[in-house]
């Protein structure tokens, strides 16, 4: 049976062939110091998956051989908990690539839950390497943030943001980019990105003396932990109806999988991190998985993106991607 998203595309005559491979997004570990309720990776301190040293080397090799891949986007879990995180960042920066780190803020204080290694050096390391920091702060108030990410997370996050500000992140004129990420705490769509950014700026500056560069609004994807929550609370069908009713053709045309490739801890390739978490890996014509060890952008550009019902999360309202709204 065709999925809801593909049906909607067909009805409206929209095709989504890949456009480019300009971003390599690596999910290098599922370990995280947190275990958030909406986490689509099901990350937690107990997870052990890590990209191997060979995998790290292969990723750097791919960047070196393919200059059209301008951006390395590091995610997890908490990517800083990977033993070769530093090496990966330094390697990609030495190749003059833009490096984005999806940094959850609290890891600065919690450190590595397994090794107890402290992580308070991160702001200085990020600044020294010139990476872009993208950090989740589900709301500019404690109530929603702690409801989603755990008790005490909001105040720790504010403290971590102060440390990033102190080395120039989010401070105008420094060139150090600090993007915050909003996502709804339940089954509803994000408010328009620009208006929410203005609210965040006002509240964070006035009440907490925190600066940031921009805000990304991201829609909750109906997969894994969040899907389970929706099903348990009897809200799954209503949420899918809402996403479908908010289908926006312009947002559908801009889905991020058209321009990026996602890599898992085993080096397998996917259209995006959501498909990675759903196990929808890319395959070659002979049925073997596409991997970072045998990376061929020309072949990847000929693939069909593996779409599903969950893709409606990318096309609802103002659209949603790892870089926020898409229209």
């Amino acid at each position, binding site marked *: 049976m065709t999925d809801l998203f593909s049906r909607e595309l067909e009805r409206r005559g929209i095709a989504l062939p890949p456009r480019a491979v300009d971003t390599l997004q690596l999910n290098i570990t599922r370990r995280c110091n947190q275990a958030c309720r909406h986490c689509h990776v099901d990350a937690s301190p107990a997870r052990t998956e890590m990209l191997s040293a060979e995998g790290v080397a292969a990723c750097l090799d791919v960047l070196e051989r393919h200059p059209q891949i301008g951006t390395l986007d590091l995610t997890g879990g908490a990517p800083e908990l990977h033993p070769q995180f530093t090496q990966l960042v330094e390697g990609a920066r030495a190749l003059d690539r833009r490096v984005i780190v999806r940094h959850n803020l609290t890891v600065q204080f919690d450190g590595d839950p397994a090794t107890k290694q402290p992580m308070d050096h991160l702001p200085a390391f990020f600044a020294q390497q010139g990476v872009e920091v993208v950090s989740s702060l589900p709301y500019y*108030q404690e109530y*929603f943030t702690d409801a989603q990410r755990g008790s005490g997370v909001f105040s720790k996050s504010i403290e971590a943001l102060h440390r990033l500000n102190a080395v120039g992140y989010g401070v105008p004129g420094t060139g150090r980019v600090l993007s915050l990420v909003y996502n*709804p705490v339940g089954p509803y*769509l994000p408010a328009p990105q620009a*208006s929410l950014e203005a609210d965040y700026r006002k509240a964070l500056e006035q009440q907490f003396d925190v600066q940031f560069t921009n805000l990304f609004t991201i829609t909750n994807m109906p997969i894994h932990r969040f899907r389970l929550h929706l099903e348990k609370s009897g809200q799954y069908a209503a949420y899918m109806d809402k996403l479908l009713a908010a289908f926006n053709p312009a947002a559908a045309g801009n889905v991020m999988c058209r321009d990026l490739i996602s890599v898992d801890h085993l080096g397998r390739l996917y259209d995006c991190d959501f498909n990675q978490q759903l196990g929808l890996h890319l395959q070659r014509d002979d049925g073997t998985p596409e991997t970072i060890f045998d990376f061929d952008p020309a072949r990847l550009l000929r693939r069909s993106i593996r779409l599903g019902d969950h893709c409606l999360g990318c096309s609802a309202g103002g659209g949603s991607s790892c870089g926020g709204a898409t229209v």
Partner: protein
Amino acid sequence: MSSYYESEDLKKFGDIGRHAGPLAEEFFKYYGMVTGADGALTRREKALIALAISHSEKCPYCIDAYTTACLETGANPEQMMEAVHVAATMKAGITLAHAIQMNNHLDKLVL
């Protein structure tokens, strides 16, 4: 026994067109124009007004719908609760203002 105000019934709002389609069509057009877009008031301000009225009119469907609409237009829980307090003080004020009528009548009755 059947029950009133099932949350599933919110979806059936469109059915008010039954037996009077053209009137419902006009209503929904008007409703959409007023609540669906920024005007002199933002959609967020309109959602907060609608939330307050949902309470004073005691409509569970509207409370559900406008709690969500408030969040989707970027209102925060403090703003939403304050809107409900506006509805509550209006109700209290209106009740108390009628004491003037009572006092007027009292004045008439008392020798």
